């Protein structure tokens, strides 16, 4: 200590009287971090206007007044592999261990709207999700599962209306009214062009299909979230937290504009818009991201004319960051996932997936996924963080960072607007380039040891990794192909031709396609056949390859 007396209780900055570990401290996204935050850093914020109470505008502190005191988040593990039979068993296993919601991972052919026996499906059957080629497969996937009292999220985008049709038809065939089933389809095509890349059609017809689902859902399937506007994949592709926040909310506002342009009443569909964010490593930055997202969304929806309080709520699912998992010393991933999951809970998530420790090596084994689920259960049941709402609210650092991220988001909104909006910016490769740049920087910093990853470039071990890897049923693909053959042979051919013909005609016009798609589904038209009709009418999207 020097002789100078330090002021106590003031808003002055802490004096730097001891050398620090680094010359520069930054969040993972490159936001400069000071050594101390005080009331001065948030003196421009007004509690009632900028923060307020949970359950009240601008919803910074949470979408519900009681949050986890009322009800815990939904524990929803993203799962799917091999055939519908195998995945059905995994769902039952997870539900038996306390999971409270389902989440379907589809394989690549399904994501692209191809049946298992399509030539481009070669080698991909059941590899990173379950293969669902028809209503028949959906029936098997949910057999013995009470779809009337468990909600299901489905990560499906290009062919979302068709796969949703499978789900609705399966429920109805079991005597369950479509008005009472609950769940989510991801259905977010903009982030497909930007990051995840499982698009099928060009932007215009894709947006039409999405607005069709908004309209159909609000009238016919009122408990369904017709979209999950996703930042997760943007982040996994290498973006920063700010980019994830800005691009996701920007996409969300674009959907709202398209639906309003179609003539839909904003308060009819906005309450069913939901979100999906990543939980990465920088603890406070992630919490600030979720909080900022709620405030920005509420303000923007209000300015777009939403009147119902429910329309203003940014409700979201979170998944811990797959890209942070290491293949080296895989057991320590449990610790990473715990921290990330805690950030999501402190950020007020409505639903959560925790990654399994072995996912940098393969799809999760039963034991690995159980530990991941137990991680959520420990946070919920043992840690005490669920006992009060938004416990970090009022922290000088968290409030400052929340505000900072909001400001950075608006800067991106302005840049995108200057490019002509979200779709022109995609066509110009703006988002793709921003993300590739951030991803390269992150990798370079890691390679140059400016950033440390435990077990990878620090605290390394040369022990071989001994961890059991999930093995799939090798007969699954054959079973699936035989099932498809039988289905095509047994179904009512005249009905099949009629429903597909009507879909084609409707697609060439401008009617809502959901009723036509449901008719195709009920006639046991396959995913590939139904999507094939739409491919012929709409064409396919090809992206510019930018790196």
């Amino acid at each position, binding site marked *: 200590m020097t002789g100078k007396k330090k002021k106590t209780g003031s808003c002055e900055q802490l004096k730097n009287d001891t050398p620090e570990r680094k010359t520069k401290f930054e969040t993972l996204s490159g936001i400069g971090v000071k050594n101390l935050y005080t009331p001065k850093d948030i003196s421009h914020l007004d509690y009632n206007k900028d923060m307020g109470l949970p359950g009240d505008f601008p919803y910074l502190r949470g979408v519900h007044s009681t949050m986890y005191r009322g009800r815990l988040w939904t524990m929803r593990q993203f799962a799917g592999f091999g055939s519908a039979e195998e995945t059905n068993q995994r769902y039952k296993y997870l539900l038996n261990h306390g999971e409270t919601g389902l989440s379907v991972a589809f394989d690549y052919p399904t*994501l692209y709207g191809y049946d298992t026996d399509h030539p481009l499906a*070669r080698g991909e059957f059941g590899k990173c999700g379950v293969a669902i080629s028809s209503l028949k497969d959906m029936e098997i996937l949910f057999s013995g599962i009470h779809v009337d009292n468990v909600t299901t999220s489905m990560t499906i985008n290009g062919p979302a209306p068709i796969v949703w049709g499978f789900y609705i038809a399966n429920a109805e065939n079991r005597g369950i009214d479509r008005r009472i089933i609950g769940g989510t389809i991801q259905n977010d095509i903009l982030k497909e062009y930007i990051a995840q890349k499982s698009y099928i059609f060009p932007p215009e017809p894709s947006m039409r299909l999405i607005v069709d689902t908004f309209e159909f859902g609000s009238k016919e399937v009122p408990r369904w979230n017709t979209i999950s506007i996703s930042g997760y994949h943007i982040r996994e592709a290498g973006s920063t937290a700010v980019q994830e926040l800005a691009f996701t909310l920007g996409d969300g506002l674009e959907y709202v504009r398209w639906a309003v342009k179609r003539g839909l009443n904003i308060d009819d569909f906005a309450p069913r818009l939901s979100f999906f964010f990543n939980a990465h490593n920088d603890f406070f930055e992630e919490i600030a991201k979720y909080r900022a997202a709620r405030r920005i969304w509420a303000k923007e929806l209000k300015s777009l004319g939403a009147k119902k309080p429910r329309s203003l709520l940014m409700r979201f699912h979170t998944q811990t960051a797959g890209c942070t998992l290491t293949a080296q010393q895989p057991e320590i991933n449990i610790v990473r996932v715990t921290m990330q999951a805690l950030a999501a809970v402190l950020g007020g998530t409505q639903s959560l997936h925790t990654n399994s420790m072995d996912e940098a090596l393969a799809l999760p084994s039963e034991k690995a996924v159980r530990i991941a689920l137990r991680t959520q259960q420990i946070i919920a049941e043992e840690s005490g963080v669920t006992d009060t709402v938004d416990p970090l609210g009022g922290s000088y650092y968290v409030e400052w960072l929340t505000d900072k991220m909001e400001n950075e988001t608006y800067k991106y909104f302005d840049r995108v607007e200057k490019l002509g909006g979200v779709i022109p910016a995609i066509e110009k490769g703006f988002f793709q380039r921003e993300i590739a740049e951030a991803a390269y920087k992150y990798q370079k910093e890691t390679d140059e040891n400016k950033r440390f990853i435990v077990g990878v470039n620090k605290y390394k071990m040369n022990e071989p990794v001994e961890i059991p890897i999930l093995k799939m049923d090798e007969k699954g693909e054959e079973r699936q192909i035989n099932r498809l053959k039988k289905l095509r042979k047994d179904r009512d051919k005249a009905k099949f031709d009629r429903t597909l013909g009507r879909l084609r005609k409707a697609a060439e016009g401008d009617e809502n396609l959901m009723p036509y798609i449901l008719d195709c589904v009920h006639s046991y038209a396959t995913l590939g056949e139904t999507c094939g009709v739409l491919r012929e009418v709409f064409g396919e999207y090809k992206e510019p390859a930018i790196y």
Partner: protein
Amino acid sequence: MEKKIRVLVAKPGLDGHDRGAKIVARALRDAGMEVIYTGLHQTAEMIVETAVQEDVDVIGLSLLSGAHMTLFRDVTKLLREKGMGDVLVVGGGIIPKEDVPALKKAGIAGCFGPGTTCEEIVEFIKKNVKK
């Protein structure tokens, strides 16, 4: 002046995870190589066709969907059929170590999993490329 190493970075199959492929493409370019990136959704035929046309020395395959045992081997098989067996082929992605011996046998000279630095890939290519 020494001829630059020509590399084709390719994404076979339907997998859309292109973060790694793009980073590697850029790192190889920064290391002085000439890089062609195919973009997404390439069949083995498309990849080999591009390799022939661009007369590349190296092909880098990237796949995170788990279909590597089929799709990587499709590429090396077709390369041999086209008389391009001397092209150095490397692969990256989520590849369990149990799969590596079979891939090596099929002609994938190097497999690079999560945690690999760009420098390791650059060094491997420089050391093993047939010029």
